Every structure is written in C-alpha cells, then in structure tokens.
C-alpha cells in the first residue's frame, strides 16, 4: 500500500521547495512504482471547488 505522509502541509514561499513524503506500508517486499503529479486547485481546502486535474497518475505493483 502507498500513501502520502500528510494530507496537508504548509511551506514558506521563500523555502524553495516543498517536500512531500510518500510512504509504503503493509510490507516492503518486491518493487512498487507510483506516478505522481501536481495540479492547481481552485479555492482552498473545504471550499467545495477543488480541481485536482490528474493527468498521468497511475499506480503499478509488480
């Protein structure tokens, strides 16, 4: 199983980079690949107008 380390994080505009943790749980045998992407979001969390336009996201397990 794959999940993100947190549902939300804050980063200062001057920090240069946002580090998003990705965690593999439920065992670590074998190779697991996951694709990720970022997307603009209309409105803030809970605004009812999220627009997560994921384009190439997929998950593969071997």
């Amino acid at each position, binding site marked *: 199983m*794959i999940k993100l380390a947190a549902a939300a994080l804050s*980063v200062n*505009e001057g920090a240069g980079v946002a580090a*998003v943790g990705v*965690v*593999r749980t439920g065992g670590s045998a074998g190779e697991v690949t996951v694709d*990720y992407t*970022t997307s603009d979001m209309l409105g803030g969390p809970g605004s009812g107008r999220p627009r997560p336009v994921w384009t190439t996201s*997929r998950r593969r*397990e071997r």
Partner: protein
Amino acid sequence: MDYEPTTGTLTFATGETLKTILVPILEDTLVEGNETFWSSSPIQRGGGVLVSPSQTVITIVDNDQAASWNSKRRAISSPSRSRQQQCRDPSRPARDQPRTASVQFETRDGSGLAGVHYVASAGTVAFNAGETSRTFTVPVLPNALDINSTVTLLLSNPGGGHLGSSRATAELTILNRAMSLQFSAATYSVVEGLPPRSWSSVSGRADVEAAVRY
C-alpha cells in the same frame, strides 16, 4: 506562477518504505496571500492499493508585505525646522526568510509650496532584514503666513516588496504657529491733558500666548 508543476515516478525497491516528492516553490514579490495546490494522485491501477491520504494540499505561505505609510495624515507645527516622516514595512512572520526591501519617496506641493513652506525632499529608504520602519526628513521653512499648509508624500518603485495601494500616499500638514505683533497705526495723536490710553494692538492667532517688550 507560484510553483513548478511536477510530475514523476517513484519506485520503491525491496525494503524501501519512504520516498520524497520535491516540488519547487517559486519566489515572487507579490502580496497575494496564501495559495494552495494539490500533490500526488488518488487514481490507482492494477491490483495494488492506494490508501488515504492519497492527496496532499500544499499551502504556500506568502512572505511578501506591502510598504505603506503608518498613518494617512501627518501634522507638524512650524517653526519646527524639520520633521521625520515614517513609512512602514509591516511586521513579517518570524518564520520569514530575512530579506531586504526598499522604496522611493518624494514630496509634492499641496497648499504648501516647496521653497516657501518646506524643502522638497526625495530619496530611497532601505529596510534591512528585520526592520519594519524607516524614516526620512522633510525640512520645514518658517513663513509669515498665518495659515496651515499641506504637502503630499508619495511612495514609489518598491524593491524586494510590494507597494500597498491603500497607503502609497500620505498628507503632511504644516501647522503654522507664526504670530506677528505690530502697532495698529504708524502714527498716533493725543490731546494734552486727557487720561492715559493705549493705542497698540496685536494681530495674529488668538490661541497662542505671546509677549512683547516696550
């Protein structure tokens, strides 16, 4: 653009349980408030399982602040010879990165005239890291007019910050405290033998105490 769109693939080898996605955050000088975007994907394929959280909402905390006057109106009294005017770079959050900023200032005639009521002033004030307030001086000239006069103060061309539109200008009021004392006439006449009488008079402000030797 506030961040660099990021797409990629993470591969967990046997025994690996933690990876990191790095999303470049782009610095700018706009006062735009905090912004949010999504990271990663809830879509899954094949027989594997993505579990919650499969999305992260990233909030970019804006670190740009507006330069502005700390007061819309200023009043000073003549004959004080000068007055320091203050412009403000609002307090930055403690987590902010130390940076420098600057802003240009200038004076413009209102009812007060440069060279008559004040000395025209212009220049640049710089804010070092941690500074939230700077001052500049507008020399005030003494004059004989018994009226107040105004000078417009302007901020422009911010560097390393953004100009707050609501307070890019301010009005400086020079309160004229000048008082003139004089006789009411150039000559007086009196009939010999009449009781003593005063013929002098004072013109000027009624709210200022003054004295004269005779």
